[in-house]
């Protein structure tokens, strides 16, 4: 299940990876860590939620953007991770961090199984099958009232004793940074090349010796595990879980974030998640129209500028560099 040799295959990435970029990221991270001290509770909460979506969007981007496995079950896996952790903590009395780990492990295994079951499916069938899984999971959680308290919601023990969102912000920031950094290392490694090759032409990838079966399962497992763990941390932050959070709208939101930010880039999902979540909160007073705006923007992006915000940013940067 954990492919032997993937650790060896990680190694140092292609030489030439920019140390400037890494330094910039580190500086940005430091700034981000200090941010909560300059903001009030509510903005920090918004940013914390945004960081949760950064993790979700980035992990989905790995699966769908880079490897080409267009799964529609990502949000359900986050919910599954949340419920698993919550129920283990509530029923078995294990400490919350262990619960979170268990949530991630369960969703890792679930993702592995999904990867194995959908190996030969074309994009549309994969989308249908993962959609069916997500909806089934939501319905089952909703129905198992005795276990999950269904639509009433499940009260979840908190991770930290704090009343302010600030420490949670730092937790999510660390998790998001670890996710993005981990993905960066992965994508620059041999595994990254294999995944991208699978997306571009699976048959050719196989013909040159890439074990597409193993890596499709792996990437499904990894991205699902990340989503599950993130969902678990989120559950232990908000203190409440509900199958409402596993509705298809959540998946649509993740897709919107990744597409707006720029698929198949590392910064795209980060940017997309941050922008959409912050804008969503900022425009909350205007009601549902903000979702209309997002949807229209995505449609415009798909139609006119498929590379999203990151594409625009890169084009601008190239123009500045050319002019300089």
């Amino acid at each position, binding site marked *: 299940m954990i492919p032997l040799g993937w650790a060896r295959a990680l190694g140092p990435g292609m030489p030439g990876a920019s140390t400037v970029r890494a330094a910039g990221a580190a500086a940005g991270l430091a700034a981000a860590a200090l941010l909560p001290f300059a903001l009030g509770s509510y903005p920090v909460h918004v940013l914390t939620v945004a960081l949760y979506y950064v993790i979700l969007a980035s992990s989905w981007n790995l699966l769908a953007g880079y490897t080409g496995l*267009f799964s529609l079950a990502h949000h359900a896996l986050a919910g599954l991770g949340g419920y698993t952790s919550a129920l283990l903590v509530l029923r078995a009395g294990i400490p919350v961090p262990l619960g979170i780990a268990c949530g991630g492990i369960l969703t890792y295994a679930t993702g592995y199984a999904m990867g194995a079951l959908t190996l030969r499916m074309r994009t549309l069938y994969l989308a249908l099958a993962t959609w069916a899984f997500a909806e089934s999971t939501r319905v089952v959680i909703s129905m198992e009232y005795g276990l999950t308290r269904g639509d009433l919601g499940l009260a979840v023990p908190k991770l930290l004793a704090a009343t302010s969102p600030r420490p949670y912000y730092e937790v999510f920031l660390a998790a998001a940074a670890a996710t993005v950094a981990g993905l960066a290392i992965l994508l620059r490694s041999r595994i990254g090349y294999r995944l991208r090759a699978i997306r571009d032409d699976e048959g050719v990838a196989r013909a040159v010796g890439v074990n597409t079966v193993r890596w499709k399962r792996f990437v499904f497992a990894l991205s699902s595990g990340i989503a599950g763990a993130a969902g678990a941390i989120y559950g232990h932050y908000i203190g409440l879980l509900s199958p409402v959070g596993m509705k298809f709208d959540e998946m649509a939101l993740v897709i919107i974030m990744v597409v707006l930010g720029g698929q198949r880039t590392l910064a795209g999902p980060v940017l997309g998640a941050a922008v959409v979540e912050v804008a969503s909160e900022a425009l909350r007073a205007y009601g549902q129209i903000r979702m209309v705006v997002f949807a229209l923007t995505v449609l415009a992006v*798909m139609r006119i500028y498929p590379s999203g915000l990151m594409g625009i940013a890169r084009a601008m940067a190239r123009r500045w560099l050319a002019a300089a």
Partner: protein
Amino acid sequence: MDPTLLTQYVLAGLVIGGIYCLMAVGITFIYSVMKMINWAMGEFYMIGGYVQYVLITAWLGPQRWALALPLAVLTVAALGMLVQRLLLQPMFAGQLERLDEYATIVTISLTVLFRNLAVVLFGPYQFSPRDYAPPVQLGPLPINGSRVVAFLGAAVLLGLFALVVRRTWLGLALRSVAQNRLGALAAGINLSRIDMLAFGIGVGLAGAAGALLAPVFLVYPESGALSTVKGFEIIVIGGLGSLPGSIVGGFLLGLVESLGSVLISPSFRDVYGFGLLLLLLALRPTGLWGEQAREA
């Protein structure tokens, strides 16, 4: 279990199943011709309901619901064609890769767009036109008149659909595009127009379902969600791209829900379909009639 009561429930299941067929046939038809899945089918269902309601309350009055129906269907179909022309047509213009992803992202975005637009325009309230007909007695069990109308309407529409597909030139063109796009193009068929019409017909069926069921399931922004779910459940059960699969799947789902409600428990009504779906996914992932889902 009283056999007459069982029969009533079976009939009730078939009635609702017939309506589910409309959604499923629409989804599968669009897939057959355009090779894409329209995830926003439920939203066109929802729009059909709204248009029907608005037509009845603002203009035609509740007595002339039968006149409002075709108008609602045509409106939805026209909207569908517009959407297809603006957003989906470029899919086939050549440069685009990974069409499936594009179509999925675009139609999912449409879901978000329409649903929230409905809230913005009409608010989150539930509307309902008056029942289309008084309740009909089927033995000792009275069936809601609107449901009977909806079933008959679905039967008529599916019959018309079958007629068009089998007996008309348009149907021939549609079938040829479904079987071989390149061949159809070589034969001189205007692919972009066929795509547009196919999409319009497909969503028109969904809009019809919405208009027919407006008094039964009510009209509100989220009303599409459930029908999308039902529609795709049927697709998974019956097989993507198979019209007989959609029809049999529709009736099967209606039956399973109805019998499950009476034999096991009515509160899990929506779950039985998923049980069937999961069973099929495990045993026969391409559905009962499905084409091969294996990659080429």
